[in-house]
């Protein structure tokens, strides 16, 4: 499987995503430069964490219009697999590939914490390696991670099972309904605030629980 991890000016966790994919999962993974208009032969796209464009104006507001994003949006609208992690989730919401928005943490503090999360939807291409109800420990590392959406959108997400991940031990940042990650209706686009790429080895992270996101896709292709 050929993976692409987009690198915007200010992206931070692209390196760890490439490590998780290339070194831990043994996949073919390369960086996708923000100015490239072409995804090439990439079959799977990751928008990584970080501070693209310095979080200027709003997190992800400017990255959303980077040249590479035209291809990413087209790819996603044709069913291509896209995972947005942290800043990547913010970019997917700004690009309207996912509903809602990420706002400033409720207590105004930047949170860096290993958290227990519950997998709510294990049917997406990115979560099939888990079972619904699984609890995983993955780090959260963000200042603007409070998921917000109007009541109608929130009700729709719950009714359609589009909440992928929820904070299982209280609500660290004031996210509506303790939502940590969501997917689009087709399940090919998933965004989450916590960092699965930082939980791929118990030596360097709280667990290897994050691997499931990547393993889901690999298994899905092999099947």
């Amino acid at each position: 499987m050929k993976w692409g991890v987009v690198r915007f000016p200010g992206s931070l966790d692209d390196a760890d995503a490439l490590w998780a994919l290339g070194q831990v999962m043994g996949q073919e993974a390369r960086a996708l430069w923000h100015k490239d208009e072409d995804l090439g032969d990439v079959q799977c796209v990751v928008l990584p964490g970080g501070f693209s464009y310095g979080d200027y104006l709003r997190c992800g507001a400017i990255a959303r219009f980077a040249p590479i994003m035209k291809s990413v949006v087209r790819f996603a609208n044709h069913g291509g697999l896209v995972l947005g992690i942290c800043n990547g989730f913010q970019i997917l919401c700004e690009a309207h590939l996912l509903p809602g928005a990420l706002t400033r943490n409720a207590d105004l503090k930047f949170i860096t914490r290993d958290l227990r999360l519950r997998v709510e939807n294990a049917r997406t291409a990115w979560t099939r390696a888990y079972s619904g109800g699984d609890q995983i420990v993955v780090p959260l590392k963000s200042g603007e991670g409070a998921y917000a959406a109007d009541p109608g959108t929130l009700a729709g997400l719950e009714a359609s099972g589009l909440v992928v991940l929820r904070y299982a031990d209280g609500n660290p940042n004031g996210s509506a309904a303790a939502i940590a990650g969501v997917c689009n209706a087709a399940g090919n686009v998933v965004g989450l605030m916590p960092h699965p790429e930082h939980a791929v080895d118990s030596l360097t992270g709280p667990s290897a629980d994050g691997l499931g996101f990547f393993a889901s896709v690999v298994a899905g292709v092999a099947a």
Partner: protein
Amino acid sequence: MLVKVFVTPRKGILDPQGRAVEQSLKSLGFGGVGAVRVGRYIVLELDVPNIDQAREAIRRMCDQLLTNPNIEDYTFEIEPGEGGPR
């Protein structure tokens, strides 16, 4: 023309900055302080033929980039151009 765009969090969206500022104002002893919202003020110079085109362009700028309509409201003012730097 000079365009002034005022962006604020929509009412009903949690605004922790606004709440923090509200609490600070109250603890400084200012009475009568109600809800505070903290937003963004964007100023831009715009050179288009007429004010209707300007309004249309500004609305599109706000909807596409300057604001996130999910969580923010905006208003704007347009000042006709004057000669010289501002």
